[in-house]
């Protein structure tokens, strides 16, 4: 399974980065969204996979039955998902405003602020 997921994660990173390298600002956006997902899946995979129970203590027990999935990795991913969502929302609107301001979605037209 790690092999499969490694391939999947690698593929996600590759596609995300490919999209980020496009000239179309909208593709850039989709690439960023994919990249967040890819990073989350990477954390999930490298923290170790157990086809096991969720890290939830059954009622009446005081610890989850072993083996259980790593809860800390999950908490990290949850935090990362939320952060990613907030940032993506901002980016979406920023892109929207950029297209409005410049009148094109071609990133090559956005270079007035450099030299």
């Amino acid at each position, binding site marked *: 399974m790690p092999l499969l997921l490694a391939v999947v994660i690698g593929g996600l990173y590759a596609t995300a980065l490919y999209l*980020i390298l496009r000239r179309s*600002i909208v593709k*850039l956006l989709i690439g*960023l969204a994919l*990249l*967040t997902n890819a*990073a989350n899946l*990477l*954390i999930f*995979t*490298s*923290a*170790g996979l157990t086809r096991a129970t969720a890290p939830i203590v059954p009622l009446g027990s005081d610890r989850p039955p072993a083996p259980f999935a790593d809860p*800390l*990795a999950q908490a*990290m991913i949850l*935090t*990362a998902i939320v*952060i990613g969502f*907030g*940032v993506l929302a*901002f*980016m979406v609107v*920023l*892109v929207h*405003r*950029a297209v409005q*301001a*410049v009148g094109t979605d071609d*990133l090559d037209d*956005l*270079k*007035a*602020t*450099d*030299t």
Partner: protein
Amino acid sequence: MNLFLLGTLLVPLLTGIACLLAWRRRTTQRGLGLAGATAHFGATLGLLWTVASDGIQTAQIGAWPAPFGITIVADLFSAIMAVVAGMMGLAVTVYSLGSMDARREEYGYYPLFHVLLLGVSGAFLAGDIFNLYVWFEVMLIASFALLVLGGERAQIEGAIKYVTLNLISSAFFLTAVGILYGMTGTLNMADLARALSRTAAPGLVTTVGLLFLVAFGIKAATFPLFFWLPASYHTPPVATSAIFAGLLTKVGVYALIRVFTLLFVQDPGFIHTLILVIAGLTMATGVLGAVAQNEFRRILAFHIVSQIGYMIMGLGLFTPLGLAGSIFYITHHIIVKTNLFLISGIAYRLRGTYVLKDLGGLYRTQPALALLFLVPAFSLAGVPPLSGFAAKLSLVQAGLAGQQYAVVATALAVGLLTLFSMTKIWAEAFWKGDTGESAATPRPGSAAGVRPRGLTSMFMPVVVLAAVTVAIGLAAQPLFTLTWRAAEQLLDPTAYINAVLGSPR
């Protein structure tokens, strides 16, 4: 529990919340912003004082013991950074009271500003690698919003690059954290240091270290990862530029120094040499970028890049003197660079442009401003006996001691080019006579003789920061003693690890 440690985090948080609750009530927010920034600066001073006298301060959030709960920890390096951040927060707040326009003040400037301070302070105090990631994101999102606040086209364009490249950096960071956690099963940095010191896979650790190098290298704007900075820093209102210039990249530098003294020290022959090479290239490319510019803030922005090279040079040298020099350099640079941006804002307020060609005559009409410009400008270039000289000198001495002649030569040559480009600003904006065009678009109320509103509160922080620059230049020893001690703490992290985890039995 050290209240100063907590206050460094809580004050900006609560101030941000209070400003948010006072949404669109401008006067209230101005008062809250000033009070909050003052209190925050006070807290950081208290923190530094405690750390300097009582040693490393730690707190376990939620009372969960390390390495299980999140640790916030202040060693001398953190505390120094926090103090400088607090000082800049206060200075820029006072400046903003005079310079920020009412609409931006109404629409969230103060809450965003304090969230930014929260993120920065959090990053300095984080004792947990994932928590560091979170604070980075807090800082970034606040900087995103501040960058676009006002929504002018240049801001939006600059923001696209700034946001994209910083998000890529965050992705690297997150990836690296994920792999690190996978390898070690822990996030607490002290615990990580222990785990990595006895790792069975040193090569993998080096690889992860390189990922962190890229992630923080982007944040810190090193070669060849700095592009977001010159593309965006000159676009927002100047107070925002100033706080960005002072703090943001320095958080990246902080993180570089932290992880490459605490975590990734297994392969210094490779990684730290690499950092040294990057340092040299960063200095050189940054200063050349500045030489090519003809606009006040763009020159300053490129100089940030260049100066980052000095800051990581000490890290690359990896000696007490080098690191002490780096920390001294960061401190000096934050004060000086923020001040230069603030001064550019005053020039803009008086002349309505940042373009050097259209500026001029400020020496004749604004001798005080001219003098105030010279202090940070020469300090930036390392002219003795200002703060930049002591900073550069320590790095050069450390470099010579390590026989790294190439990077030392680069550092000194870049200093000269920095001087060149500061005198360019001086000659064009101050010495040169009034140009006919400069009056083309005067600010409302900036006509001859009429002092535009808000100038007093814009001048005040500039004067204070210039005084500080002179003071730490002339009396560098106290600060240097402090940075030296900070560097020793960094190079021997046992104290840090024990402060967080308790001594090993």
